[in-house]
């Protein structure tokens, strides 16, 4: 691990676009601390007007689901079509549903 000592920690970057309501994950970057991570994110991810708000989160604070748990986590939802609201007859004239 001695080689890694000089590496800046990794941060995950979330951007809210001009029209978007939620911050979306756009990528990651290296920075020594949170204020610098925010500025780096501004430079790397918003220079083409991609966003109006930025979050940066230390990658180490993210707990991810494991690929090994894929079956038990996600498989059971696969055959429960009744959880999708697709069994209603739409009245004619409703356009945006």
């Amino acid at each position, binding site marked *: 691990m001695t080689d890694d000592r000089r590496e*800046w920690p990794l941060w995950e970057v979330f951007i809210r676009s001009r029209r978007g309501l939620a911050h979306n994950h756009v990528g990651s*970057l290296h920075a020594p601390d949170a204020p*610098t991570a925010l*500025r*780096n994110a501004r*430079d790397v991810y918003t*220079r083409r007007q991609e966003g109006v708000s930025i979050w940066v989160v230390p990658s180490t604070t993210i707990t991810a689901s494991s690929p090994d748990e894929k079956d038990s986590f996600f498989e059971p939802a696969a055959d429960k079509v009744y959880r999708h609201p697709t069994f209603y007859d739409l009245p004619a004239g409703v356009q945006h549903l």
Partner: protein
Amino acid sequence: MNALAAYTLRLGDDALILSQRLGEWTGSAPELEEDIALTNIALDLLGQARMLLTYAGEVDGNGRTEDDLAYLRDEREFTNCQLVELPNDDFAATIARQLMFSAYQYELYAALQHSADETLAGIAGKAVKEVAYHRDHARQWVLRLGDGTDESHTRMQQGLERMWPYAHELLEDDGVIQELKGVAIDPGELRPSYDFVLGVLAEATLSRPEIDWHPSGGRQGMHTEHMGRLLAEMQHIHRSHAGASW
């Protein structure tokens, strides 16, 4: 050349030459993220240079375009301050220059927004937001390097000593400025930029360099030995292939 054209041209030359210098960090900054940050700043400056050179050509009245002014003038016709043409040197020296130059440019554009010349005021209004970020970027780095490790502190102090004497020229007064009362900015108004730099140095545990000599002459077309090489790199394509486009 009339005073308004001369004044606009020197502001444009400052932005153009520093943009060219910062562009040299492309692919060789300490980190990928910093690489992009510095080249973003270079592109902001290039945008300012284009507007200023275009306007300088218009008010000069000799029909010269931004390209004519950028690519077809020789060294003695450039009126940028010498600070911006100095080699990048250590990353810390580049950052020291960024701190001093963007502190100056911030006060300049903030005041120039209220210039009697509407075009200059408009350019300044757009540019001041960009420069506010440049100044913050430099400040963040000076604080981290100055108040960081022994090594970073030493190199930040050395970078500062390297660039310090050349910052004096930024606040020089001359006939061009005096002739443009209400249009150009009196250097006395830019004093807060110096105080801003001193404030950052104190916060970063750096000391104000005790250097009394200061070079001058950039505004009269006198440049350091580094200028010719920079211009050669910047201009040779345009001069070798006149009228080429892609």
